[in-house]
């Protein structure tokens, strides 16, 4: 461990109030760091809520909380995790920090708009949390806010949906900013086909954010109008249609799943070649599949509604499209595996997290086929099977993608390295824990256990207990991982510019990168996975440690 005085890069104080210079910064790296910290804080809140739910479900009947509390907590867990953690996670935090760096730009296209997006995020999150403590109490509708229940619930639904409305604008503006940045700010020689896959994934994501999020905003606005002005848009008693709400909600919320997963896929596509010392297999196919997912993913929303009472023809069409969207995801997995084939693999922690992503995402993805198939969905829809499915995809997928990003870019951000052995162990514990936590849910769902149940029949007890044990293992893995990173920030071994030997532009900068990014505008002459002449600095470290 070295205490050499390091160049603090963009962390260096500018003089003046430290709080003010961070809160009102327009530096994309600082904004990204603000997002990252905020997201991690909300993430720990969401994790604690999830653990409380699992504890309540440890035994049938009341265990640690009342029925109303349970309903409010699963609603809150969903709202916090989806709107405050997963949707912004990788794009807002790592996208902000590394998109301009990977493109060779000095910042995003609209730095002040970027800061405004962050503030909308904080204000929106604040409003959503305010709904807990003000009139009526915490919303108990589930994060889906299905009408007519959300119209008649006496809890504070209006305030919560206002929070979601504001958060939506944060997402739209960030997407807009990224699209313009990618179109206009690429360095000389950075052609579209020399762009790393992470910006490509952000590009596909940004289009969904810009096109789909307004529909969410309109929908929550309609809920507010229905609740506050008493207009019957969705309420059948006043001539409205509850299914209209479900369509509008899922037209956003299904593409939102791809907002969540595409950036993680981008990160994984960037990480795997680096640690295999081999160009990505099928670069153009991966780009194509990202765009195909973004496009086809916008046409499958009603697969959440197979048993809602919509027409059987609609069920057939949406089931068909759902199966089609499975193909590009599968293609990506095959390309990642082929990248490993005949590589020279360094099993560093970011790669372990990335492979964890592939395994857990596959665990979740394949059960998507069961849910997308109309006949089988009729049985497992709205059961624990679905809960297991989306937690594997979102926590196992996006979550692991986020952790992989944190371990991959950590040395770039802090100029130090965490303890790699502990990092690898934490990855393995988390992967094991996630399986223990969510695999029993598949079995519960197949046995007919409905979701959002405070209480359950005795035949489901064993599997619920297994799942709760799994939640404890997962929590231990998370604590270990975060502690290791926290410790590494200040006390880790100092590393150079390019510890992993990566070929994208951010690794040509000092760590941490300076405020103005590049001293000279970079000129790009080759693709992002061109490793000739780049030897990972970590190789020497690993070798000397191996000698010990």
């Amino acid at each position: 461990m070295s205490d050499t005085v390091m160049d603090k890069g963009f962390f260096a104080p500018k003089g003046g109030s430290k709080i003010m210079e961070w809160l009102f910064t327009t530096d994309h790296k600082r904004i990204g760091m603000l997002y990252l910290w905020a997201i991690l804080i909300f993430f720990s809140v969401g994790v604690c809520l999830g653990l409380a739910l699992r504890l309540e479900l440890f035994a049938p009947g009341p265990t640690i909380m009342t029925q109303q509390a349970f309903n409010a907590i699963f609603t809150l867990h969903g709202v916090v995790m989806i709107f405050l953690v997963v949707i912004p996670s990788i794009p807002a935090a790592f996208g902000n920090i590394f998109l301009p760096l990977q493109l060779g730009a000095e910042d995003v296209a609209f730095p002040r708009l970027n800061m405004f997006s962050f503030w909308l995020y904080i204000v929106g999150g604040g409003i959503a949390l305010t709904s807990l403590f003000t009139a009526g109490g915490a919303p108990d509708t589930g994060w889906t806010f299905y009408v007519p229940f959300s119209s008649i619930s006496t809890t504070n639904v209006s305030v919560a949906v206002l929070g979601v409305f504001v958060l939506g604008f944060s997402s739209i503006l960030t997407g807009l900013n990224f699209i313009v940045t990618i179109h206009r700010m690429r360095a000389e020689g950075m052609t579209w086909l020399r762009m790393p896959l992470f910006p490509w994934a952000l590009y596909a994501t940004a289009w969904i954010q810009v096109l789909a999020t307004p529909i969410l905003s309109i929908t929550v606005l309609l809920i507010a109008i229905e609740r506050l002005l008493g207009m019957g848009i969705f309420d059948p008693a006043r001539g409205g249609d509850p299914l209209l709400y479900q369509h509008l909600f899922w037209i956003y919320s299904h593409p939102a799943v791809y907002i969540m997963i595409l950036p993680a896929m981008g990160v994984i596509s960037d990480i795997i070649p680096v640690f295999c010392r081999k160009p990505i297999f099928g670069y153009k196919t991966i780009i194509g599949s990202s765009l195909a997912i973004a496009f086809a993913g916008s046409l499958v929303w009603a697969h959440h509604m197979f048993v809602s009472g919509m027409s059987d023809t609609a069920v057939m069409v949406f089931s068909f499209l759902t199966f089609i969207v499975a193909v590009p995801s599968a293609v990506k997995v095959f390309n990642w595996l082929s990248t490993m084939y005949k590589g020279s693999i360094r099993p560093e922690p970011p790669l372990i997290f990335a492979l964890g992503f592939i395994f857990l995402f596959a665990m979740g993805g394949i059960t998507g086929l069961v849910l997308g198939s109309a006949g089988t969905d009729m049985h497992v829809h709205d059961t624990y099977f679905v809960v297991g499915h989306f937690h594997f995809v979102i926590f196992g997928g996006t979550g692991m993608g986020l952790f992989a990003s944190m371990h991959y870019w950590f040395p770039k951000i802090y100029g130090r390295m965490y303890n790699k052995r502990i990092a690898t162990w934490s990855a393995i514990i988390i992967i094991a824990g996630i399986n223990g936590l969510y695999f029993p849910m598949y079995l519960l769902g197949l046995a007919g256990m409905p979701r959002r149940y405070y209480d359950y029949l005795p035949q489901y007890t064993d599997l619920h207990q297994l799942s709760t044990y799994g939640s404890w293992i997962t929590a231990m893995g998370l604590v270990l991982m975060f502690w290791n990173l926290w410790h590494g920030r200040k006390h880790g071994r100092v590393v150079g510019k390019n510890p992993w030997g990566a070929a994208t532009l951010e690794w040509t900068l000092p760590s941490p990168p300076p405020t103005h990014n590049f001293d000279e505008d970079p000129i790009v002459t080759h693709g992002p996975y061109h490793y000739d002449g780049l030897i990972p600095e970590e190789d020497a470290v690993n070798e000397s440690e191996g000698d010990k």
Partner: protein
Amino acid sequence: MYPQIFSAAKDVDRAFLIILGFSVFILVVVTIAMLWFLWRYNVKRSPVAADIRGNFWAEVIWTVLPTIIVLGLFWTGWSSFKAMRTIPDGAMEVLVEGRMWSWKFTYANGKTSQELYAPVDTPLRLKLSSRDVIHSFYVPAMRVKWDLVPGMDTEVWIQSDTVGEYDIFCAEYCGLKHADMITLLKVLPAEDFQAWLDGSAETEGDEILRGLALMEEYGCFDCHTMDGTDDVAPPLNGIAGKERLIILPDGAKRTIKADSHYIKTSIMDPGAELVDGWDDEMPPYEGDLSDEDANVIVNYLLGKDESGKPFKALEHPGLHFAKVEGCLKCHTTDGTTTGRAPSFKGLYGSTITVRKDNKEKMLTADEEYIRQSIKHSTKWVAEGYVDSMPPYDDLNEETIEGLISFIKSLGGKD
């Protein structure tokens, strides 16, 4: 897998096996390949990476092949769905109503129940409707699930090939007691089902009502209670078959079982077999009460009808309606409150504060108030509660009368 009793769901289970089998196969192949590459191409064994940027044909194969496979899987799933959705002609119709947080099943002859009774091997067309929010009718053993959407008519069909009892769940989150919205599907042999369907709860209810009315008429409840508490006389609920230590007029003590003879004697000539510990205060009803009426009371207390067949439950017939209509999910009968609605106990005749058009008003909970509250729940909301009860303006007169009489039987701060 979980037991399965629905012939049309055989295809669904087959689709499960095919899709899950294929999925697990892919998962295993991907995982093994990943771990094998991780070991085989570790930097120790593979110091230099090969320069492979792609392979056109490999990519064509793993795009086209999965496409064909998933289309096959789609078709498997869709055709199994189709079978579940094609309702056979002539299926027996049952109306299924969901509301927070209970079920009501209405059969062709107008009989209602809280549990779904079905004859074995007979297709049932379930016509689904909801009174308040969206619910979902789910029978895991049938692989059947369909939403009940307010303002929309949906339907689904079931048919069981096995006699037995199976869980019915609500699968669409519907508020506070969503998890309590569960009931049973009772599949009976055809003749048992018919007997159940024909066995009219009304005649049974009539006898109970008559017994109750007679006891009220003759003032039995002035001294006896029916809830186990002592008044000036011993409580009468659950008396059938109880051992009693009685004192004969000569002072001798004897233990006997409370049978019809004993109960009748106690009514007609209470002093003849006095329960130990109580004073001989009750007047003899001999001559006052006809023999026939006495028998009705005895039968009521013993929980049997005239032919000696036991009642299904010794309860007020209105309680049946209260259960079937789901009243007891929010209203209690013991004076406690769920926080969502006032208790029925002590409601009748009490003075309560209600809000009407945002104006507070005091009134006495009389028959008319109870009737209006059932039919137009939003009109008179009791102070301290929110307007969350759906209006029940479609109940027939008999049900409403039954409910009112039931609430009256629990009421009366007089």
